[in-house]
């Protein structure tokens, strides 16, 4: 068992990495569950790309500085989210096409800015994160974003569920439809920005979507999905960090691949709607 415990007991950087991963997961995973249920799984991916130019501007201004890159990322993400929503509501273009257009513009701008200054190593930091080198400020930021996310989700839980399940009904009984949609997109952006510190812009989406997708094969209620997704993410954080420690693998991809493995196992063997449920159904009931 020492290989399981010792890395976390002996090395402070592993403890910080684990804390960072758990913090990101607790906030990002419920957001991911709602993204999945709203059929917006790829929106998270597009948003992650959209954040890049903001982080790049922050990096150009202040170097590898947490605050500047975070503010830049949040601003870029929110601009893309608001522009996307506005174009979808006021023109003939649908939300998916509108988002695709803006995130591609944003991504190209981001790559351009990163390559203007700095080496490829810096670009790799932004793209793949540095979970093994989280400082106090980064940890505080991650925990703050997660706290804010959980409080916000708890407050708008009812309108958010209704916006997913029956948006037309929500619009007919209240004015929540627009606000809850934009607030939710805001939470997506915030959590992606939190995620890219540790896991990088590209990997941050994985911690959102993979646990949610795995949970769909285990639970038939939102509460159940949230619980399963949180468990998946905790297990994959520990497994990924251990794999990274013992085998010298990059930590971000290792964590996401651990989550991906759990997703594939769920896909194959989960009790609800999985391949096993389809091809080896349990005996049916009388009524």
């Amino acid at each position, binding site marked *: 068992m020492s290989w399981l415990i010792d890395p976390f007991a002996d090395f402070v950087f592993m403890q910080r990495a684990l804390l960072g991963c758990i913090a990101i997961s607790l906030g990002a995973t419920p957001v991911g569950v709602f993204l999945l*249920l709203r059929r917006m799984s790829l929106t998270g991916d597009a948003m992650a790309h959209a954040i890049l130019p903001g982080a790049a501007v922050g990096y150009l201004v202040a170097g590898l500085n947490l605050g500047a890159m975070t503010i830049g990322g949040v601003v870029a993400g929110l601009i893309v989210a608001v522009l996307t929503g506005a174009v979808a509501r006021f023109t003939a273009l649908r939300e998916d096409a509108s988002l695709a257009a803006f995130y591609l513009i944003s991504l190209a701008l981001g790559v351009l800015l990163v390559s203007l200054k700095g080496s490829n190593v810096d670009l790799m930091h932004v793209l793949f994160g540095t979970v093994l080198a989280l400082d106090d400020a980064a940890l505080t930021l991650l925990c703050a974003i997660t706290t804010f996310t959980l409080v916000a989700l708890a*407050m*708008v839980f*009812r*309108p958010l*569920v*209704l916006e*997913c*399940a*029956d*948006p*037309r*009904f929500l*619009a*007919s*009984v*209240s004015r*929540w439809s627009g606000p809850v949609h934009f607030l939710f997109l805001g939470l997506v952006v915030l959590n992606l920005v939190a995620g890219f510190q540790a896991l990088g812009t590209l990997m941050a989406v994985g911690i959102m979507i993979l646990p949610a997708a795995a949970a769909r094969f285990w*639970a*038939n*209620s*939102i509460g*159940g*999905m949230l619980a399963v997704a949180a468990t998946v993410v905790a297990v994959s954080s520990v497994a990924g960090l251990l794999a990274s420690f013992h085998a010298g693998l990059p930590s971000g991809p290792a964590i996401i691949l651990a989550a991906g493995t759990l997703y594939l196992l769920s896909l194959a063997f989960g009790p609800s709607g999985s391949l096993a449920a389809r091809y080896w159904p349990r005996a049916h009931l009388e009524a």
Partner: protein
Amino acid sequence: MALRIRDLTLGYDRHPAVHHLDLDLAPGSLTAVVGPNGAGKSTLLKGLTGELAPLEGCIDRGVARLAYLPQLSEVDRSFPIAVGAFVAMGLWHRVGAFGRVGGQDAARVAEALAAVGLTGFDKRPISALSGGQVQRVMFARLLLQDADLILLDEPFTALDIKTAADLLAVVQRWHGQGRTVLAVLHDIEAVRRHFPETLLLAREKVAHGATDTVLTAENLFRARQMSEAFDDTANVCVRPATRGAA
């Protein structure tokens, strides 16, 4: 009046789907809206809910609360939510976004499920329901909305006889409670039997009043003469407002 409509024109891309409609609904009236496909029936309901803004004219809803059952609902039936929780959303006017759903509310949900014949379904996910059961669920939610004006768009289409009869009983219960109900229907015989008043619509109002005076062979023939297609070369409509003429 529960509803007063004056010179209402609703449409899409400037083409009228409901054209210069005047209509008064008395409080507590039970009215069927009848007409061929493309007559503007669903469009009229969308105008009444505010989903579609009038191109001309005005709608005065003299009542506080409105409930609406659309023809094509946008319910995501794969969403993991139980029947009881879904139906409880009809209590929105009481609990809003943050209010507590208490014991009394749970009793109301159980009562609404019983009224539509779905006792014992409250824990079942909506994804496991049949089409008819979904329509029963929608009616249970409408019951909880406790609305003064209830708009139903083809509520009995594609239902078996028993389900349609059960849900018709719910409509008659609303009528007995003095609520104003406006329902789009295609089954003329059912309208004759169960709906005291009828609006016969063919883009314009063909007739409105007591059902047996509206659903005459002559009126139905006139309604069928309506051309369904929009005329792309039509001129701008300059018909003077009929305000006060109704």
